């Protein structure tokens, strides 16, 4: 579908647009449900007045201080994981190239639990996770580098790094005292419980800067999926685009892990789900981000409500929901 105005023209895929609209609506509904339901039900009209500071003190406390930061953090973290997964799957031309498989998330975990064990504050833990992610990414790249980075080499080196880091993480937990180990273990499953605005802000800022950057290189990235030579022949500066994409992808997965812990599977599943729903060739960045946001918040809602009053960590649910859905879609796959 083409839209032309004067010398301007934009090419749109109707199905991708429709999927995006559906995902935005789904995200909105999940948000409303998350704000409204729970031990203390806040009717939908009261949510609106609470947000604008005109509700009852109880509603304002529950919506504004407890539920809203949690669901907003969920939306932002989900979008960041989805986008980061889409970037690396596109760069490695491999669904297994997701940051949660190639060690980046495990590296962030190492940084995070080291901070937990050292008795760090929430801020130190977030900083540790981000640093762990960046350092791991740099090492994996360095090890995979051989006059350029081949996608499959990055995946292989990354899987090796992942295994090593998971072992390191377990080792740290066994050496820590029992309380620290319990705290670190809880952080390791990934959770949105007890998230405040201070967790949402850094992710929001990262997305504000990195999302436009990612969307601006989406077209060249799609060309690079055809091979470096094919992309260069089309006039794309492959190394520049790739460096920008890697930087954005590492920062996004680092910031997201810093905010919510290593929630697995969103980065793997969101781009694959989005791709199959939009039926677009290759990975699509915008719909992957939307899918990540919906997937994570829906999983978090389920984690809070399904076995209430027992609260599950969201990481358990993302794997269950995302995994089931992906298997269903793969079964229907024709190619």
């Amino acid at each position, binding site marked *: 579908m*083409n839209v*032309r105005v004067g*010398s*301007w*023209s*934009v*090419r749109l895929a109707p199905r991708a647009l429709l999927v995006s609209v559906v995902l935005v609506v789904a995200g909105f509904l999940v948000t409303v449900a998350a704000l409204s339901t729970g031990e203390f039900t806040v009717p939908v009209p009261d949510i609106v007045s609470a947000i604008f500071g005109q509700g009852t003190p109880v509603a304002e406390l529950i919506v504004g201080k407890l539920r809203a930061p949690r669901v907003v953090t969920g939306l932002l973290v989900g979008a960041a994981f989805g986008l980061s997964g889409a970037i690396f799957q596109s760069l490695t*031309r491999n669904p297994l190239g997701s940051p949660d498989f190639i060690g980046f998330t495990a590296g962030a975990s190492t940084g995070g639990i080291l901070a937990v064990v050292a008795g760090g504050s929430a801020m130190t833990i977030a900083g540790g996770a981000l640093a762990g992610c960046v350092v791991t990414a740099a090492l994996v790249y360095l090890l995979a580098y051989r*006059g350029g980075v081949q996608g499959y080499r990055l995946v292989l080196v990354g899987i090796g790094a992942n295994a090593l880091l998971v072992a390191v993480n377990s080792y740290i937990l066994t050496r820590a005292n029992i309380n620290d180990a319990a705290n670190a273990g809880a952080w390791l499953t990934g959770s949105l419980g007890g998230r405040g605005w201070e967790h949402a802000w850094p992710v929001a800022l990262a997305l504000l800067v990195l999302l436009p950057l990612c969307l*601006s290189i989406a*077209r060249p990235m*799609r*060309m690079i*999926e*055809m*091979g470096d*030579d*094919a992309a*260069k*022949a*089309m*006039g*794309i*500066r492959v190394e520049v685009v790739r460096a920008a994409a890697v930087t954005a992808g590492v920062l996004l997965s680092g910031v997201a892990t810093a905010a919510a812990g290593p929630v697995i599977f969103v980065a793997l599943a969101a781009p694959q789900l989005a791709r199959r729903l939009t*039926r*677009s*060739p*290759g990975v699509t960045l915008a719909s992957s981000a939307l899918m990540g946001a919906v997937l994570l918040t829906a999983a978090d809602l389920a984690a809070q409500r399904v076995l209430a009053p027992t609260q599950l960590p969201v990481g358990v649910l993302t794997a269950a929901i995302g995994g089931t859905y992906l298997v269903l879609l793969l079964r229907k796959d024709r*190619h």
Partner: protein
Amino acid sequence: MDSACRLSGAGLTLAYDQRVVATDLTVAIPDESFTVIIGPNACGKSTLLRALARMLKPRTGAVHLDGSVITSLPSKEVARRLGLLPQSSIVPDGITVADLVARGRYPHQKLMRQWSKADEAAVSEAMRATDVAELADRIVDELSGGQRQRVWLAMALAQETPILLLDEPTTFLDISHQIEVLDLCAELHEQGRTMVAVLHDLNQACRYATHLIVMRGGRIVAEGDPTEIVTSELVHEVFDLRCEIIPDPQSGTPLIVPEARRRVAASS
């Protein structure tokens, strides 16, 4: 060296990491020629093509396009003048023929000019020329090797470059598809494009090339009109093959008939 040529290279040292493939190579591609580069395996023919297409940065020397050093030109600008069909490209999962061909328009597009009427016209013309128009809505993965190569060619054509480089465009194709692709290249050449191809088959090279570049060990051993330069001595020098050269009964161009080593003709 002919300075009038749009595409040329001078004093090129070509190397991958530590392995030097060619030193002090000078080459000019005659405008509006169908130039074919040929030579034994590992002679540097694909390397030379990749350098001409700015895929490989020469260690010394420079490739010139329209009088400028090619790396000094904006890369999208180069992509509007010079196209390349790489030896192997990756077909994106689930992409249709029309969508893949449309990607050839990338160098002509901007963020706010993604699909002009010129883009549309170029894509349908490219699909018509390569005879893939009726495959437009098919998934590329599901096509035969010959069809797929025509689709890649269509993508390169949609780029609308006056110069088109092809790296072994007939590899992996059966004989009839090889001829089909080469006939298409000849047609594109007749329409006024400068075509440069790396080929393996000497007879096909002689039949289609207007200008032949023969390489061995990173050096250009001979170049010119195939009818004038291809002799049994040259083939022996370059390929270590004793042969007889006869006129191709179809085209009159040189036809290489290798000497029979095991069963010498019974009649003689």
